[in-house]
């Protein structure tokens, strides 16, 4: 129905439906308020035009009116706030068991890596009807991952991960834009999100014979020597990483945090930042020695350790679980 309104952008995700409903509410209320003010000003301007013999009537004010037209707008604003907050909270909370795609943004392209190992540049293939979480970092400056048809946007920062998620509802090809000014070819840092029927997606996935991301990570884990300290038998100089993802970690300084992607990533590039209780700060940093893609592989591998379905793909693949 909304598609019939000229200029209305394509809607291809669950979020898009929610955001559009709220947007329409805002448009209607704002439209009414605008018409109210425009009508009153125009009416007064005409009705109270200067007329001989009718001077202006001096009116100091009215407490009752001031209070009324403070409280009513305030209540309306709180409705806007509340509805917007609910949608935002949902947008910032990826569903459990979302399929995952790692994104590395750089001037001026988008690099995607699926858990099964497929790599794409500037084009992201996803199946319709599935929760997809993107785990993103930048190699250089701040970029922003923006898919208008999904109504989602998330800045992509160097040195850490930011996360977004979507649930595509309509097959099609949709614009992907970089939305944070990033230099010369900011307007060229664009591409497409291709939403496919599940069976078409299987076909697309099948071709390639790629190495799953977590397996790449496992190989790196050995090559870089991580395995010498982080042994699964907890006898190593570093904490065992089996099952660490998503669990609370107690630090030397007394803080407890949940091990998320950013924690794992930070532990590799800046191990001195947070020391696990009972361990010494002896881990060397890998900052500058591994690429963002290799970091992603390591993070994917660590996440897969100790997970119930430790399949080849390390879980979280789009083809693995059917919703």
């Amino acid at each position, binding site marked *: 129905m909304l598609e019939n309104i000229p200029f209305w952008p394509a809607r291809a995700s669950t979020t898009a439906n929610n955001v559009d409903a709220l947007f329409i509410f805002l448009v209607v209320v704002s439209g009414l308020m605008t018409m109210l003010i425009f009508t009153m000003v125009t009416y*007064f301007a005409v009705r109270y035009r200067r007329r001989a013999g009718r001077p202006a009537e001096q009116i100091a004010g009215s407490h009752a009116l001031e209070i009324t*037209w403070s409280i009513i707008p305030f209540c309306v604003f709180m409705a806007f706030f509340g509805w917007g907050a609910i949608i935002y909270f949902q947008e910032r909370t990826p569903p459990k068991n979302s399929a995952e795609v790692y994104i590395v943004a750089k001037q001026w392209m988008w690099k995607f890596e699926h858990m099964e190992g497929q790599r794409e540049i500037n084009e992201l293939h996803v199946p319709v009807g599935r929760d997809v979480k993107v785990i993103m970092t930048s190699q250089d400056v701040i970029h922003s991952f923006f898919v208008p048809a999904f109504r989602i946007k998330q800045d992509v920062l160097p040195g850490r991960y930011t996360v977004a998620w979507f649930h595509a509802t309509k097959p099609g090809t949709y614009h992907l834009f970089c939305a944070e000014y990033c230099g010369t070819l900011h307007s060229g840092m664009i591409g497409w999100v291709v939403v496919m029927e599940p069976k078409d997606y299987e076909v697309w996935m099948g071709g390639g014979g790629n190495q799953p991301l977590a397996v790449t990570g496992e190989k790196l884990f050995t090559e870089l020597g991580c395995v010498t300290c982080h042994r699964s038998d907890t006898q190593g100089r570093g904490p065992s990483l089996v099952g660490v993802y998503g669990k609370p970690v107690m630090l030397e300084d007394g803080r407890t945090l949940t091990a998320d992607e950013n924690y794992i990533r930070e532990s590799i590039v800046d191990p001195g930042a947070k020391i696990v209780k009972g361990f010494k700060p002896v881990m060397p940093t890998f900052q500058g020695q591994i690429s963002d893609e290799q970091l992603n592989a390591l993070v994917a591998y660590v996440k897969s350790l100790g997970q119930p379905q430790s399949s080849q793909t390390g879980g979280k693949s789009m083809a693995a679980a059917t919703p």
Partner: protein
Amino acid sequence: MATAVVETGERETYLNREYGIKSWLLTVDHKRIALLYLIGITFFFFVGGFFALLVRLELLTPAGDLVQADTYNKLFTMHGQVMVFFFLIPSIPAVLGNFLIPIMIGAKDLAFPRINLLSWYLYIIGGCLMAYTILAGGVDTGWTFYTPLSTEFLKTNVITAALAVFVSGFSSIFTGLNFIVTIHRMRAPGMTWNRLPLFVWAHYATSIIQVLGTPVVAIAIVLVALERLFHLGIFNPALGGDPLLFQHLFWFYSHPAVYIMILPGMGVVSEIVCCFSRKRVFGYQAMAMALLGIAVVGFLVWAHHMFVAGISVYAALIFSLLSYFVAVPSAIKVFNWTATMYKGSITYQTPMIYAFGFVGLFTIGGLTGLFLACLGVDVHVTDTYFVVAHFHYIMVGGTIMAYMGGMHFWWPKISGKLYPEFWGKLSAMIVFIGFNLTFFPQFILGYMGMPRRYWDYSKAPEFQILNVLSTAGASVLAVGYLMPMIYFLWSMRYGKPAPDNPWNAAGLEWLIPSPPSTFNFDEQPVVTWEAYNYDEIREEVPVGQ
């Protein structure tokens, strides 16, 4: 009242008291300094406007075919920097505020006349640094200077641009300081706080923001320069820094800065609406408190520019809530201006046309701010043309309309001449039409998903039609702004001489001659009446003015 004469036998005014370039460049007369600022900001307005026209021309077609990508990035950057720091922020305070505040409170000058002149010199030095930046090849950081792009990746004149903003910031701080002290300490006998024109209250609130906020952006800019020169690792994650720290420091000022840009305009509109409705303002206390409320709460909302930047969900929730709080006093003001017109005796001279335009366009701009404060919608529209449209509605549809209205309202007082009323009304209407045609399509473009700062949109040709409309509007708007340039200059030579009070308006500035003599008042006035005493004034606005 004023009977002093100069050699030619005519009445001594602040304009003819002394001639020669030295008498202008070394003046401490607030009225002359206001004119010095007028020249500066008008020059920068046309520079910034020229950059905008080039941007709009490029966007006529989807392909980037007018200028190169780097050039385009410089054009929108410098359009923003010039317009914000060298036009909008000084505009009303430095021209109308400087000229009128001492007179409106019954004083001979500001509290610190020499600091006032220093403010102007700092503005000019900053302006020269900006001009140097432009001539040396420009800068392409975006007016927001985000790191690490600005600190690690760009090879353009980032430091000179930063320096230009840094220096001109002190102009802003000193002007704010001057106004605060003046308003506290130099009011004439009987001019109590509750009798002050809202124009004065508005500048008081603005000055608080200028004094408290500007130092923060100064520091932020210094840190960018230091990072760029010495790679200290403040904002660079590879060295342990945090790029988001810059955004917090920058927006902590730059959000209140938008209130620096709008509050003076609100003050101007209150003066105009009261005069041309022949009524005291509806709800004087509420209007004054709303100005202060906006200034204070305006310091608490900065991270609504960062909802998708990577801040925590809880921070985002708090800043969204606070952003709705700051919207309430603005809404109150719109209702009060409307109520002031109720049962007034309204005429439609040029200043009032601009005031009508302000009320309408500020309403739309403010309402679209509510869209942006709304987290769920903001995620979609932030960093798109929706934001561009929103802030232009407030800054151009709001501030510039108010500035033009104020310039027309007080032109007779400042210059001693009347501008041609027909051309004034015509320009106001051309501006209104051109403005809406330029910026309304941008709301739609934003919701469609067109990002900001895009040189080329050839992969999204569906954006073209609205861009063409927008560019057409910009050309109309340009005509609307050129016309006053021409007829104001014309009026200085050929305009009808202005009486003391061409509008029969309330306010101390209308009790002295047009133009005023150097020390404003022959004798210090003693005020025994309330602000907007139109019940006592009784006469209407003269017809045919």
